[in-house]
């Protein structure tokens, strides 16, 4: 049995067992930590051997456009034969990092949830279920399977926010649920249309499938837009983003981490995995609007973040801004930008996770998150101040930390295609620095607030949940090639496919212009 299968189902099975077995709370915590660590342990060799395995199956760059996208660690079992639905999982350079990220973040989140005291069993069981859903989404190579996992995540998420959340948890939970469910309608329809056109759900066979050849251009675009809406909600892209601040603010810390660290990535991941390879022509049509939306996301998110007074809401809006970089990277046909976008997804996962964990640390002590209410926290909590400074600088794209590399790669690529948009997008970097530093100033610097002067610094568990992330951010900031090299062949393959689509689109447009010229000489 392949490792991927194990890490997909281990958390689900463990979650079910935890839910049913009447264990004491502390055992439950330890058991779930053990399970997540085991998953991490399994995923590390997968990650380690990935590069070599992938290169072995990857086609030459020159042939990439014509050959199907390669995957490794595949498992393919028949599932619903009438519909040609298979239990098909595997990874490539796009998904492997995120499988790893999920496996990496989950133990940290378990640590961050150590203090959960209410309905402990339910919490950890749901959490494990969520982990299974997330990994499943990233490894699924069958559209149907993808959809199942995609929706599967909703259920635990709803309860995790709704039961263990903040004061307006019910509202936030249902809003999250509804938004995502609404989005998946389009995914549902697109899946069906694709299936009846091609007779397959396989994400390996669908790109470039001859059955799609006779799909009318407007159908392609309609499907693409539908899928975009479905995924944009998850990203979340303007104007589908309003669920995010609410969900984040109300969710417990660990769930915020998961939400920002992994769930948001699914939107962009799905665009990479589904929209782009299957609809290369529509992609070419949509890339400029996508870039515009991306820049709106960047600037708009940053400006909104600036206006927030709630620490967590600010971080939530900063996520919107940062996901804008990912979108910008996707929207241009450049290797740098695309690698940067994927890298940014990963980095944002780590960095925002840190930010949310940090917010959680102070929330646990002060029981509020009002930015105006803090001040001078560095003095009572120097360690906390230090980690916060690190995370804040990572978030504002400090060179030497991983976020910088990905953002600059995105911009380097984007500038080659969309000069003006890239320049406007850089405003996001400035604004990011502005709100991050302003926040840091308000919370950590300045005179010490008397109310908080006796606060204890971070404890060991809190440090244990933050330190690995900090190390990851730092290491990837200095040695980004560890990550990028793994990614490069996949991105080249994808780009080769996309370029073909773009040429087709250009040809179509030229032909259309010709016709228009003939009509109106």
């Amino acid at each position, binding site marked *: 049995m392949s490792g991927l299968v194990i890490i997909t189902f281990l958390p689900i099975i463990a979650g079910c067992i935890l839910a049913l077995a009447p264990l004491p709370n502390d055992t439950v915590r330890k058991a779930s930590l053990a399970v997540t660590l085991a998953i991490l342990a399994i995923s590390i060799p997968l990650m380690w051997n990935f590069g070599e395995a992938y290169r072995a199956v990857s086609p030459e760059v020159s042939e990439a456009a014509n050959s199907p996208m390669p995957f490794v660690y595949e498992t393919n079992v028949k599932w619903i034969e009438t519909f040609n639905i298979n239990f098909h999982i595997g990874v490539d350079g796009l998904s492997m990092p995120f499988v790893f990220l999920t496996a990496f973040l989950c133990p940290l989140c378990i640590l961050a949830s150590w203090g959960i005291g209410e309905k402990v069993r339910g919490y950890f069981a749901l959490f494990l279920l969520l982990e299974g859903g997330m990994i499943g989404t990233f490894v699924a190579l069958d559209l149907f399977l993808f959809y199942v996992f995609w929706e599967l995540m909703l259920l635990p998420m709803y309860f995790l926010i709704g039961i263990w959340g903040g004061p307006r948890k019910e509202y936030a939970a249902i809003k999250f649920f509804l938004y995502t469910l609404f989005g998946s309608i389009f995914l549902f329809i697109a899946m069906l249309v694709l299936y009846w056109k091609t007779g397959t759900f396989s994400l390996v066979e669908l790109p470039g499938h001859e059955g799609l050849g006779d799909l009318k251009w407007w159908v392609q675009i309609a499907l693409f837009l539908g899928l975009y809406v479905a995924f944009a909600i998850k990203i979340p892209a303007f104007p589908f983003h309003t669920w995010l601040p609410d969900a984040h603010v109300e969710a417990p810390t660990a769930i915020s981490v998961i939400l920002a660290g992994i769930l948001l990535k699914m939107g962009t991941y799905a665009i990479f995995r589904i929209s782009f390879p299957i609809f290369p022509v529509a992609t070419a049509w949509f890339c400029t609007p996508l870039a515009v939306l991306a820049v709106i996301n960047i600037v708009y998110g940053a400006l*909104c973040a600036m206006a927030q007074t709630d620490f967590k809401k600010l971080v939530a809006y900063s996520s919107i801004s940062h996901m804008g970089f990912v979108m910008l990277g996707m929207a241009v046909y450049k290797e740098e930008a695309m690698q940067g976008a994927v890298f940014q997804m990963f980095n944002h996962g780590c960095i925002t996770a840190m930010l949310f964990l940090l917010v959680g640390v102070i929330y646990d002590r002060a029981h509020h998150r009002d930015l105006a209410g803090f001040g*001078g926290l560095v003095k009572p909590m120097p360690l906390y101040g230090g980690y916060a400074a690190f995370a804040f600088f990572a978030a504002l794209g400090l060179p030497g930390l991983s976020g910088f590399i990905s953002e600059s790669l995105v911009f380097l690529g984007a500038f080659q295609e969309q000069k003006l948009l890239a320049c406007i997008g850089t405003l996001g970097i400035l604004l990011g620095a502005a709100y991050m530093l302003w926040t840091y100033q308000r919370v950590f610097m300045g005179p010490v607030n008397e109310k908080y002067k006796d606060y204890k610094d971070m404890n060991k568990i809190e440090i244990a949940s933050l330190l690995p992330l900090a190390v990851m951010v730092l290491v990837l900031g200095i040695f980004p*090639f560890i990550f990028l090299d793994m990614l490069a062949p996949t991105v080249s393959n994808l780009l080769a496919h996309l370029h073909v689509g773009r040429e087709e689109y250009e040809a179509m447009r030229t032909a259309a212009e010709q016709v228009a010229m003939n009509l109106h000489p």
Partner: protein
Amino acid sequence: MSPTLLFLSGLILLGAYCAYRLTTAGAKPSPSQWVTGIVLLGGLILDNLATGMATKGLLICLLPLLSFWILMFFGRNHLPSGGDWIAMIAIGLSLCLSYSIYHQAIGAYESGDEFFYHQSEGNIASFEWIAFTNPDTGERTPWKLGFWIDSLTAIMLMVVAGISFLVHLFSLGYMKGEENYSRYFGYLGIFSFSMLLLVLTDNLFVLYICWELVGVSSFLLIGFFINKDSAAAAAKKAFLTNRVGDLGFAIGLFIVYNNFHTFSIREIFDALANGAMADSPWTLTFMGLGLFCGAVGKSAQFPLHIWLPDAMEGPTPVSALIHAATMVAAGVYLVARLFPVFNDTAFLVIAYIGTFTAIMAATIAITQFDIKRVLAYSTLSQLGYMVAALGVGAYSAALFHLTTHAFFKALLFLCSGSVIHALHHEQDMRNMGGLAGKTKVTFITMLVGTLAISGVPFFSGFYSKDKILAGALEMGMINPHHAIIFIALLLAAGITAFYMFRLIFMTFTGKPRDRHAWEHAHEGPWTMQVPLVVLAILAICSGWTHLGLGGFFQERVVPWGTEAQVATHHADAPTLFTTAAFAQEEGTAVEEHSAHGEAHDEPVANAAAMHEEGHHDVQHTAHVVAMILSILVATSGIILSALTYWERIRVIDPAKCARAMGPVYDLVYNKYYVDEFYARTFYRGLEIVRNVLARFDLRIIDGIVNGAGRVTVFTSGKSGRFDLRVVDRIVDWIAEVCQHYGQRIRRVESGVIQDYALKVGGAFGTMVILWMIVRSFFIGA
């Protein structure tokens, strides 16, 4: 030979002093003695071990980084005396290795060796980082990160590591007893690392990384007194203002990458030399200006100069190191390093911005009373000088001034730190006075620094400033339209002399205005005095042509690609090559450049012609005239200052003058209201936009219909307790609409069976009729 001697003698002096302290302090050697020993010994060992340039370079920058990590993790609780000795050892070793490189460079210069001369050989270490497909060649090309070690690097290394070392030393005394003492040294470590790597790297991307990292260390150090509101605000302001400049830098980098697909400075130069971008002059201009934006931010040029005076909130040694000597000079270094990238339009902009900054800051400095702020504005002014020098093409003069300025300005800051230390953190000059007798070392060394900055002959500043003025005058002579640059710079030189002596007079002479503070004033410990003395020596001699660096700069620190000409020319005209470089630049740009119109074509043509025949004369004339004029203005500035502020010979009342000037004085005193202008426009605008957007997000995007608060009954479960404004959102809106129509629709369930029957009958009838209508319209016809 001379710098070597100087350096060695300095070190020997230091060693002797330590030995003296060792014998007097008692049997147990103090940590500082250990440090000295380890540094001297370790430097020797490392110098022998690290034979390759790359190893040396790596060690130079990584040692301070190591000290940073150690201090951040263990400094506070685990190390004796806060771990300051670790920082000392690290920077000391870096200094030794830097000296070793510098020594090689000087040696090469003196022996006529070409190694540091042909900078093509300077790119001696590289490391393959991330790789992308080059769209031009279709090949996968890695980004090579490496060091570029040439004469410029060597001298910069020396300046940075040297001053950093001295500042470390000074801080031992100055920061004693501060909270977070070890963190302070940690921050110094990260700064030294990034600054040293900044001057070592051969890659623009790494340069940008270091660029930001020095910004961060600056942020950390300005905000070192973290619980002080003003310090926090200043730190933020510094970082953000720098970020604005960095945006331009980043866009410049985008253009670079877009055109060259590499960040290696060497490869960019090669491509440019091969005529890349020759057909896109505007792009080239934008690229140059973008990169220059970075320099504007970091070197605090107008209009981004506002952060530097505020940055004085940091500890004074930091001001000396970062905000006077090294980091702020990084902008100048950047422009110098990328000299061939700029075209003449860009240079013109650079020149004017530098000039404007120089004169503007100088005027502000006259009116300030905070001793550190005066020095800060003086720094601004001097940086403007350097930038202007680069703009007019006086390449080596700019870097020469950078070096001398680093020494004397660091000296001045450390002296002011010593004064502040002596007066227990009093910074207002109005409360000082009469300190000359109390703090002799400080007084003498500060006087040396002041003489140097004022441009008094035989002090280092004179030589470098003179070269800059000569360059500007040359430019003015070749092209009279731009003579204003020279005039403004000359004026600024005079003002500089004036306000610097104002500072000296107000601080050290006359009656002490704060008697109590004066009585308790005292000289700092030896760790604070030694750096002052060393820097004073450097401030005097570093400018000398033979014993100092003058000759080295003239001959070895030249723009890339101009060695050939220089090599042939400086045999007969050893001091003057700047115009040659400038003319060559103009020459390459002459064809494509028409936007500047007639006015600019003329000097280009002139320059080219001159380059062919008689530029020698112009240069010579310029040099002589500039020298005479600069001595004149410096002297008059000093005399005027003495007449105004030296109580013994006072004839002018500054207060009366200020009143007489009225609004002009107010304008200058308030720094031309630039801060206020930004606050009213950008900050306010940003505030408005963000508030509007946030509200937009809540209301419009999130709540198409207002008054949907009723939905909370449904969504919150606990009726509409929540702020209605927060709750009206689109999803709720849908819920509400559904709820509403649900209620209505449900009313058909009246519970009365007759009613049901009627409705079924009605529905049936409607369907039949509809069908008939539809049929008769569409099918029946």
